């Protein structure tokens, strides 16, 4: 009996991520959702710019690579071109919450029937560890070498909270993958975000609190702990919007 195997929605390409990075876990959860809903053959993914730029090599579905921040707009074009396809984007915090803020907000406001996987690790990973829109107050990065000073560069952006003020989105949840319990919950949330699209319910975004041991300058274990102690308090986990359960509750 096989008790553990690679999801069919992942290719055999070795992931290029740094040791201890949680992108690998998140990729697996996305692939498991595709397997579970049996949608890989009609799914089209949109890769973004950042560490996850090569996702087009890892998912076993049609993929397009979008310009920095523009993935939700590309996804909108794909979905409008053929609403029977399942369209998802996989974006980091710099991509989604900084350069692509307009595309994020307006695809949410339109209630595009797409799924967004938003990986928040509070840093620009691929370019070598610069301050992100989600870097925490006081966080030391290459471009905030004395710690993020909120008096000069302002405060982090909480995407789920911000988008939850809009009428457009269907489902917004923030999850984490820093321990087994959170991973198991994240799996359910990601699957739900895809199922919503299959059922035509509309815009779903899952924010995943992730780690960057390399650019945080920590061991993988210490990075998981740092996420628990610093990121999750600033970015509380939970459901920020669930239109259908709210309507059911009325």
């Amino acid at each position, binding site marked *: 009996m096989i008790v553990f195997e690679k999801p069919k929605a992942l290719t055999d390409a070795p992931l290029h991520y740094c040791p201890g990075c949680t992108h690998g876990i998140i990729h697996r959860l996305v692939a498991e959702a595709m397997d579970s809903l049996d949608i890989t*053959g009609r799914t089209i993914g949109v890769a973004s710019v950042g560490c996850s730029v090569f996702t087009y090599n890892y998912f076993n579905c049609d*993929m*397009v690579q979008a310009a920095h921040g523009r993935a939700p707009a*590309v996804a909108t*074009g794909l979905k*409008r*071109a053929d609403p029977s396809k399942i369209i998802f984007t996989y974006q980091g915090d710099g991509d989604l919450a900084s350069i692509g803020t*307009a595309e994020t907000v*307006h695809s949410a406001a339109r209630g595009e029937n797409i799924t967004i996987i938003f990986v928040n690790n509070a840093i620009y990973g691929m370019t070598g560890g610069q301050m992100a829109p989600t870097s925490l107050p006081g966080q030391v990065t290459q471009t905030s070498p004395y710690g993020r000073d909120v008096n000069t560069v302002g405060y982090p952006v909480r995407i789920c909270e911000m988008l939850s003020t809009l009428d457009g989105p269907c489902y917004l949840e923030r999850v984490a993958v820093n321990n087994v319990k959170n991973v198991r919950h994240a799996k359910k949330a990601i699957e739900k975000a895809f199922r919503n699209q299959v059922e035509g319910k509309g815009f779903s975004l899952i924010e995943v609190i992730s780690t960057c041991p390399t650019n945080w300058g920590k061991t993988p274990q210490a990075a998981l702990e740092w996420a628990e102690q610093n990121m999750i308090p600033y970015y509380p986990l939970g459901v920020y919007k669930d239109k259908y359960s709210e309507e059911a509750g009325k």
Partner: protein
Amino acid sequence: MAEKILMKGNEALAEAAIMAGCRHYFGYPITPQTEVAAYMAKRMPRIGGTFLQAESEIAAINMVIGAAAAGKRSMTSSSSPGISLKSEGISYMAGCDLPGLIVNVQRGGPGLGGIQPSQSDYFQATRGGGHGDYHLLVLAPNSVQEMADLVFKGFDMSEKYRIPCMLLADGTMGQMMEPVALPERSAETIDKPWALTGTEGKRKPNIINSLALAPHELEEWNLERFKRYDIIRETEQMSESYLMDDAEICVVAFGIAARVSQNAVDTARAMGIKAGMIRPITLWPFPEKALKTAADQCKAFVSVELNMGQMIEDVKLSIECCKPVSLCCRTGGMIPTPDEVVAAIVKANEGGKQA
């Protein structure tokens, strides 16, 4: 021939796009092209198409990328400042080998500029506009009829070569009304095995991408694209010659400048000057062959433009500077009068250098 109807250039273009099979339009309001969006907003929902007013020009071009990646005929339209915003997406389209139609109904610049007609985005259009080594197919209509005809041509060429196409009009072409016979033809259908239609578990994933970190790989991609550019340069140059058989002075002009210049050529002829005109219809590929042939018989060229002299560089390159080329131009949204063009022709005929 279909019955002629009176239409505004922008509307004729929009209807032609629908007739050419375009069902996905993404745009953002900007003068003087907003009629295209307004027309699409009315028509698309009635024919099962998509009209979407994007949050920005940037988003609009990226929506075009999405629909084009799915294999659909899609387009966007804008005017000069908006095209600057789209330039990132256009570069990605070129790098991803995605077809699509981008309409630029030009206004005066730089910056916010003005809203009157201009041709000052010639460099931007013919040199690519965004970053990287690439070209666009660039078509320049000079009548409402061509606003419609060239849309078909643009979509067809764009899909055939997998190169984005820019229809480079100016505010006059967009705003003026003329009788137009909408083309009586259906859209060409081209097989798109590269399109993202879902693997259905029957094929390997299709990947549309412009990223190649290995320089030798990126060079290979670019060289392959430039082979297609070479074919296009060889086979797709389009221009119209007017009174060129015995011409000694060759006026070169496109769009509204060509309409003005044609009158000027007639006037010059009445004055006894053997003037003619070559009107580029494709700005990229530039009609080098027609220009080079003309250089054998003409003693001088006059480039007439609604900018400070951009196409003139292509005129000089085409004839390899073997004859004097002078410039007759207005900028900022001003259009040269026929008299100004006549004066430039007279001067060229007298052997004057730069006008």
